[in-house]
C-alpha cells in the first residue's frame, strides 16, 4: 500500500501542513509564479485547512456519541439541500456548532458539502464549500454562549453567515475565472449573485428562527439524558 496507515500519516500531516505546506503555498504563490495565481493559493490553503482538520480529528477526544450526532445532523442538512430554493445547510451547521461544539460544527459543515456534492456534482468548488461551511460551524462553536442566550444575536449572526458564505463563494468564482482578485469583476459577480445572496440570508434567518429552538432543545435534552 502506498499510503501510510492512519496514525503515522495523521501525525505527519498535522506537523507538515500548518508549519510547512501552508507557508510554502503562499510563498510559491507570491514569488514563483509570474502573475500572482491567487486562485491556486486560495485553493491550496482551503484544501490544507480541511486536511489539517480531518487529521486532527482523530487525535482529539471526540466521543462516538458526539460523532454520531454530527452524522445525524449532516444527513439532515444534506436532505435539506434538496428543498427547492431555500437551503437549511448553513442553519443546521450553526446549530451543530452551537450545541455540539466547534469541532462538530466544522465536521457537519464540511460533511454536508462533501456528501451533498455526490448528488449535486463535485468540482473545484468542493474544498471551498467545505472550508466555508466548516468555518461557519467552527465559529458558531466559539460563539455558542452568546448565540444560545440571545435570539436576536442568533438571527443577525445567521444573516451574516449566509451573506458571508455567498461572498466567500463569489471570491472563489472570481479567482477561478481571473486567476487573481479583481474588484470590478467581484462587484459584477456580487450584483449578479445578489438574488442568491438574499435567498441565502433569508433562508438562514427563517430556518434558524424555526429550527434553532426545537432542535436545540432536543439536542440539549439528549445531551443531558445520555451525557454526551
Amino acid at each position, binding site marked *: 500500500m502506498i499510503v501510510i496507515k492512519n496514525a503515522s500519516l495523521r501525525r505527519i500531516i498535522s506537523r507538515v501542513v500548518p508549519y510547512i505546506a501552508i507557508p510554502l503555498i503562499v510563498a510559491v504563490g507570491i514569488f514563483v509564479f509570474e502573475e500572482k495565481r491567487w486562485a491556486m493559493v486560495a485553493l491550496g490553503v482551503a484544501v490544507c485547512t480541511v486536511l489539517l482538520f480531518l487529521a486532527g480529528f482523530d487525535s482529539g477526544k471526540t466521543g462516538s456519541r458526539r460523532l454520531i450526532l454530527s452524522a445525524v445532523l449532516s444527513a439532515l442538512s444534506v*436532505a435539506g439541500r434538496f428543498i427547492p430554493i431555500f437551503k437549511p445547510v448553513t442553519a443546521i451547521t450553526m446549530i451543530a456548532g452551537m450545541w455540539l461544539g466547534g469541532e462538530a460544527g466544522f465536521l457537519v459543515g464540511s460533511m454536508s458539502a462533501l456528501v451533498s456534492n455526490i448528488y449535486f456534482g463535485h468540482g473545484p468548488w468542493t474544498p471551498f464549500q467545505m472550508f466555508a461551511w466548516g468555518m461557519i460551524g467552527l465559529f458558531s462553536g466559539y460563539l455558542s454562549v452568546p448565540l444560545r442566550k440571545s435570539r436576536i444575536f442568533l438571527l443577525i449572526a445567521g444573516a451574516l453567515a449566509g451573506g458571508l458564505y455567498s461572498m466567500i463563494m463569489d471570491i472563489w468564482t472570481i479567482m477561478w475565472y481571473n486567476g487573481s482578485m479583481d474588484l470590478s469583476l467581484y462587484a459584477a459577480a456580487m450584483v449578479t449573485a445578489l438574488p442568491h445572496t438574499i435567498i441565502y440570508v433569508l433562508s438562514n434567518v427563517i430556518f434558524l428562527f424555526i429550527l434553532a429552538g426545537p432542535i436545540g432543545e432536543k439536542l440539549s435534552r439528549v445531551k443531558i439524558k445520555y451525557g454526551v
Partner: protein
Amino acid sequence: MKTIADFNPIVQTLYFLSAALCSMLGMNPVMIVISLVGALLLYILRAEDEKPTGHLFTLLLFAVTALINPLFYHNGATVLLVINNNPITLEATLYGITAGAMIIAVLYHFRSFSKIMTSDRLMYVFGKLSGKFALTLSMTLRYIPLFITQMERVRAAQRTTGQYKDGSIADTVKSDLRVFSVMITWALENGIVTADSMEARGYGTGKRTSFALWRMRRRDVIFLLLILLLVGLQLPALLSGALTFTFYPNIRSLPTSPAAILAYISYGALVLTPSAIECIERAKWKYFVSKI
C-alpha cells in the same frame, strides 16, 4: 473491461486533480484547448446515454463567462466598439473566451470524476486520511435513505391522529413541521442507540481495520507513475512562467519555448491516456477471439 473507472480511487483522484489543476495554471490557450478536448472525449466516451441538455447548460455557461469579461473589464489596446463610454476591447474578449473554455474544461473533468467517484470510493480516499471522518461519512450516507423510510412511517402514523386532514397548504406545512420534529427526536435517539451499540462491541478500544474493494495493483502503480512523470515534465514550464500567455495590453504570440512545448506534449499525453485506455479496452472486448 478495465478502464479508468476500475482503477484504484486514489489514482483516479490524483488523475482528475492533476488534469484539472494543470489547465487552471497559466491561462494558456493551448493547454486549455488540450484540456477541453481530453475532458470532452473522456466524458462522451463514458456517458453514452447522456441527454443533450447537459451539454446545453455548459454551452450557456461558456457564453455567459465569455461575455462577462469584456463587459466589465476594459483593459487592452484594440478597441472593438464603445458602449456607454465603456470600450469593449479585443483582448478582454479573447481573455473571456479563454477563461470560459477553461471553466467548462474543468467542469467536464469534474463531471467524469463525479460519475466515477461513487460514495464507497470517496470513503476509501477519506478513510486513508481519518478513520473517524470516514465513519461519519459512511453513517451520513446511510442515514439519508433511512430517514426517508422512517419519515414515511411517521407520516402514516401521524395521519391516523388527524394530521394532513383538510389538505390546505397551511395544514400541510403544520403537519410537515410536526413530522420533521418527530423525525429529529427519533434520529437523535436512534443515533445514541447506535453509538452505545458500537461502544458495547468495542469501538474505539483498538486499531480499526476496514475493508475495501481496491488494492494497488500493477496497473494502478503504472498509471500512478505515469501521472507523476507527466506532471513532473510540466512543472518546469508551469513554475517558471514559461506557459504564461500575455493578454494585456496587447496579445503576444503563443509561448513556444522548449519547456512550453514539453509541457504541451506531456499534458496532452496525460489527458488523452484515459480515453486511449477506454478505446483500447473496447477494441479488445469487441475483437477478442477465443483460441480454444
